[in-house]
């Protein structure tokens, strides 16, 4: 169990190549551009597909909902996405400001599960109180570092439930949700997220 957990931690932030669909694009009916070159002509690039598991934490604050005076919010999130790149990435190339192991699709669809596990707000006596916040699930559309999500949230503490939308760009996110029932209502929050992708990639 410990070994599995350790392997899981080590796998985060890396990408893994699969050999599926590995041949490139070529037309065997036409001769190579340089017939006298003794070697294989590099085929055309079919692009690549990938499955990415992005997990991490988000921290921020917001207003609305049951905490009218504002609240601090710490959430854990995991996203599984399926995406494509029109060109195959090259591990030999230097990618400025991007760690070598990190590989993100230029466009992707995904599903996010999150839980605002720790929410800090003031209680009736104006004292800071730690509570659990909503659990949510979203469908996500992303373009490299940016994306939007639409989904549903449920607050296990109050039983309130309702829709939410979220947008993110690199480390920043903003979220709007409406929880009906309990002491719900409109809730707007934002902050920073630190999510690390693990990607499995193969050619199209």
């Amino acid at each position, binding site marked *: 169990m410990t070994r599995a957990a350790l392997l899981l931690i080590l796998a985060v932030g890396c990408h893994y190549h699969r*050999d*599926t*669909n*590995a*041949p*490139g*694009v*070529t*037309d*065997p*009916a*036409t*001769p*190579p551009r*340089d*017939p*006298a*070159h*003794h*070697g*294989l*002509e*590099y*085929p*055309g690039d*079919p692009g690549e597909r990938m499955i990415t598991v992005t997990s991490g934490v988000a921290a921020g604050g917001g207003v609305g909902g049951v905490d009218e005076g504002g609240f601090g919010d710490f959430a854990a999130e995991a996203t599984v996405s399926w995406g494509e790149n029109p060109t*195959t*990435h*090259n*591990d*030999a*190339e230097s990618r400025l400001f991007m760690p070598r192991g990190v590989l993100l699709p230029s466009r992707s669809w995904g599903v996010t599960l999150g839980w605002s596990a720790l929410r800090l707000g003031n209680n009736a006596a104006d004292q800071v109180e730690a509570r659990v916040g909503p659990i949510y699930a979203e469908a996500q559309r992303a373009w490299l570092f940016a994306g939007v999500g639409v989904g549903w949230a449920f607050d296990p503490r109050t039983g309130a439930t309702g829709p939410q939308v979220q947008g993110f760009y690199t480390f920043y996110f903003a979220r709007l949700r409406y929880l009906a029932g309990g002491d719900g209502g409109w809730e707007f929050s934002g902050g920073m997220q630190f999510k690390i992708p693990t990607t499995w990639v193969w050619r199209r």
Partner: protein
Amino acid sequence: MARVATVVRARTLSAWAGDLVRPAPLIAAAVLAVNDHALKGAGLVPAAITGKLSDVAGLFLAGVVGVCLARGAAAAGTGRRARRDGPLAIATLLAIALAFAALKLWPGFNRALTATWGANTLDASDLWCLPMLALAWVWLRDREAAATEAGPPRFATALALATTLLLCAATPAPPPVPPPPVAGWYAADAVLPVACGEVHAWFSKSGKTGAGVTIGVVRAADAPACVATITAARLRFADGSVDGRTVELPAATGGAAGPRDAHQPAYESLGYVGFAFDNQARWNRGDRNAVLELELLVAGEPRTWAVPAKHAMLTFPVGAGR
């Protein structure tokens, strides 16, 4: 009061970087820029000269820039002006010499720097340029003797500092990055000896929809002519075979082709045959072996030839250096 004024003067940009606005470092910077970015590879000047010119100019410039930066750091830290030819300058020049020697002699250091900075040749003969650092020290000593309190304008100093730092950092273009590995067919060392020479065969195309094979004929020195044509071709797999279709090569390349590099022979004649099949499906189900069967007419004589072929992830360029 006088002490405060000295500290302020020592810390001004002109006090520690003003030497860069002098003809000698400016000429060295110009030589470095022109040589690295215009002369190298242009064929105007022999490579032996362009190869050393950057080291000569670059070491002189690196020495002057290094001492300027060290003096700037010392002034910022202590508030005092260090001599251009004093212990700090000598230590800086020695550090540059050691780093340069490591770059030229130590493969690990060279690889690390090449990966992060740019291409740099591992060449012990470049060490003969090291005396340029001594020349830089002599020049700095002369500057120390001749320098006046009034330095060059701050803008000119800043411009010279920025330019020289940029030139020292901007090396010639890094080596080309190899493309990602890709799956392809290959036939290792496929050579058929014939009476008039040799027939070479190689996979020249491989992709999702099939593969293509080129044959090239190398004429023996004593043979008057040696021409081969493909009369039939098959790619035989464990579960069946695919017939090839010969394709006429363009007139410009279908005949004799001179050697492309020192390792590739001159071909008397060339031929191409394409095999159209679902190669992606074969790859995905693990078909990694086949036999390339060729029926040839070599100098009027029919020959059959079976060549084992493999399907594998290939790192490019494949076939280079044969």
